[in-house]
């Protein structure tokens, strides 16, 4: 059962009546972030944000845009491309997601090193809180320190504090050229190459690694993809230095449309996942995190992909994993090892059972009291995505 309110006033009314009746609401966009990391309860009524999808303010020369939360990132991108601009959100699921969901999940992808995470580029939000109040936070200018930064709390709160109805974002010039150098090598070699690129301080926009599945090949070989954005002599120079640092010519050099398609596929890699396991630690521990992820991948018959610059390793499986006890043991063991490195392991589990047995995010930061007080400040009746993991 879901509700599709056609205006902000209807969203407010819906939330107020849900609060009065004590029935939970789950704000949703196109549902491309499956399971929402355990933040959304299984029970509860979906509040569909996609009917609201207008662009409210777009002045290309300001490099900012304000639009309703329900607009798809793909629809937004088409309009931005006409003006040579883009919104470099490449967090997993972003390919098919909405602007509101990108803000609500607050994720990041490989492009973070170059453009910042989503949360760094959200300038303002309009949200309806759990008691039906409409808040206009932040603004549409790129520098703004007026008052406490409530925008930050809502970005990444996964609908647990309010329904995001409108978002203002900072935009960037679309790179003149987009190229990706692809190396198909053994896994150890791919990791060594990623390390060489990190140490070289080269302005490479993204470095992603994958087991064969990422490329659709299915074999045992790994893939390392280095993305270079920009035009002219600068981009050619970086390309030359990447090849020199890696000591080999790429197996394939993708340009522009082909390069974008490669990264779009990578962005959509999670779309068919029933279980996603995200491990992360500092980037120089990538080898160890990959080694920790391998038994998890074996236990769930999953594939591995890594965002080398950000130290993120993901394991996905499109099938619901069998052998629950073994899987629970593998996940718990991996979490213990990655937390010992100072990192974390988080789950997105469409079925929910593993998340409940293993725990969605592991140990919290010791600020549980503050987290609970923030939740009750904005959602005093616990009507929005009530299960808020710490």
């Amino acid at each position: 059962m879901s509700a599709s309110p056609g205006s902000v006033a209807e969203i407010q009314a819906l939330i107020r009546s849900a609060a009065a009746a004590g029935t939970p609401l789950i704000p949703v966009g196109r549902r491309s972030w499956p399971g929402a990391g355990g933040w959304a309860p299984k029970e509860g009524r979906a509040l569909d944000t996609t009917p609201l999808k207008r662009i409210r303010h777009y002045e290309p020369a300001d490099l900012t845009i304000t639009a309703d939360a329900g607009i798809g990132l793909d629809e937004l991108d088409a309009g931005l491309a006409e003006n040579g601009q883009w919104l470099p959100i490449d967090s997993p699921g972003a390919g098919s997601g909405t602007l509101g969901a990108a803000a609500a999940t607050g994720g990041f992808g490989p492009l973070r090193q170059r453009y910042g995470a989503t949360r760094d580029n959200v300038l303002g939000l309009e949200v309806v809180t759990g008691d039906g109040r409409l808040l206009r936070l932040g603004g549409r200018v790129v520098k703004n320190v007026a008052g406490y930064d409530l925008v930050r709390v809502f970005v990444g709160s996964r609908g647990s504090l309010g329904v995001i109805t409108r978002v203002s974002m900072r935009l960037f010039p679309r790179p003149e050229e987009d190229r990706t150098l692809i190396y198909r090598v053994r896994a150890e070699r791919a990791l060594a190459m990623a390390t060489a690129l990190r140490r070289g301080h080269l302005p490479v926009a993204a470095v992603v690694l994958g087991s064969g599945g990422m490329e659709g090949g299915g074999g045992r070989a790994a893939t390392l993809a280095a993305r270079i954005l920009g035009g002219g002599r600068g981009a050619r120079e970086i390309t030359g230095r990447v090849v020199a640092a890696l000591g080999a010519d790429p197996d394939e050099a993708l340009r522009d449309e082909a390069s974008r398609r490669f990264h779009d596929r990578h962005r959509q890699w999670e779309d068919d996942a029933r279980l996603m396991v995200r491990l992360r630690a500092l980037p120089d521990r990538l080898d160890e995190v990959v080694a920790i992820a391998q038994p998890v991948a074996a236990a769930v018959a999953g594939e591995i992909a890594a965002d080398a610059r950000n130290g993120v390793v993901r394991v996905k499986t499109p099938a619901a994993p069998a052998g629950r006890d073994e899987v629970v043991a593998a996940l718990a063991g991996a979490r213990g090892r990655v937390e010992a490195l100072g990192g974390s392991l988080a789950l997105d589990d469409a079925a929910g059972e593993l998340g409940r047995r293993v725990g969605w995010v592991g140990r919290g930061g010791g600020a549980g009291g503050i987290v609970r007080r923030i939740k009750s400040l904005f959602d005093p009746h616990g009507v929005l995505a009530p299960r808020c993991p710490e």
Partner: protein
Amino acid sequence: MIQQSLVRELRAICGSYGVLDDPDALLVYESDALTAYRHRPAAVVLPRTTRETRESVAAIARHGLPIVPRGAGTGLSGGAVALNDAIVVGTARMNRILGIDAPNRRAVLQPGVINAELSVAARRHGLYYAPDPSSQTTCTIGGNVAENSGGPHCLKYGVTSRYVTGLEVVLPDGEVIRIGGQGRDAPGYDLVGLFVGSEGCFGIATEIEVSLLPVPESVRTLLAIFDRIEDAGRAVSEIMSAGMLPAAMEIIDGATIRAVEDSVFAAGYPTDAEAALVIEFDGLEAGLKGDAERARRRCLATGAREVRTAQDEAERAALWKGRKKAFGAMGRIAPDLLVQDATVPRTALPSVLRGISRISARHDLVVANVFHAGDGNLHPNILFDRRDAEELERVERASKEIMRLCVDAGGTITGEHGVGLDKKHHMTLIYGPDELNAMWGIRRVFDPGETMNPGKVLPDETQPVAAAVPA
């Protein structure tokens, strides 16, 4: 008057040099860099460690006195002023860099570390700390965290909050929490992002983890001279629209140019010009020449009378000199200076600049503009003499009109200096009762007793009567 028992208690925690209560010694702490607001604190405590901070905060809380956290006191909003006999907890003695983790481009430090010193230390590893407020040779990273400070190079690299990845915080009741850390990627509410920019109202950061960037291989600096400031504003818009992303774009106006050229800081800018635009690109040497040439052509096309390009580090410093010494030079023109900090959409720059000059003419005031043009972050400086009461009134009226003008253009009341005491009464220009209520609520989440830097950021009259937050 502070109770001697509390002073003794604080001395036992921080050592006898760590507590100041002599009225003369306290004079230094009566204001920050916005000297219009002056209140002498009851005492100043200078802890050296998290433990000393925690114990001092807990002791002061037991005595029911308010606390004002303070870094180097270079803030420009009155945020570090001690109202109502508050006790200042200063971070000056917590000035150690605890570690630089070069492979992960990360540093962990105490809050009293000077901004520029972090970059100096990181440089050995080929890294630097990106946010560069104009006060960077004296301001502290702890103060930058409190204010979410910007700086000229934030155009390309973003402000402080993008670089702070973890915090250890002493809460107003003395509890110590750790938020974020090791890269700030853990799932959950972004408490680090919320704390950054909280202007000392949520607690005192005692350990800060930041991310560092590789030092750019090469830098190109240009200086374009314009006869009309609107043309300089247009050049900025066109350069950005053309897809270039300079590291910095700064404008100083004619009044400021003349102040600089009349001073010991003379930088060789032509005194009959009405605007000077400093543009800087950084990155790989190979790409810079093309960028600089494209920007030069855009400036000439929008009416620049000349464009100079720095050939070496000395010339680069000379081009920047007029911008960097602008505030110092203004001291020659008038004894007092009111620095404003509004941000407007970039495309609104030309019309807002015209509006500011109309307002200053109407009130018979000299306004000198120095600003981060690429970000649309204006710093109109109203020059005056506070001994002239009638002029002071005109300054206040003009200041309010300029603020209103910027808000009406789609902007905000502060881009990087913070609200503090100075701008809290302007908060109602941009936020309604629900937003202000939410901000009071979030303040009470961290500081239920409102003892941490009370009287700042939020206008007193908007304070909700009932406590909005359950324990």
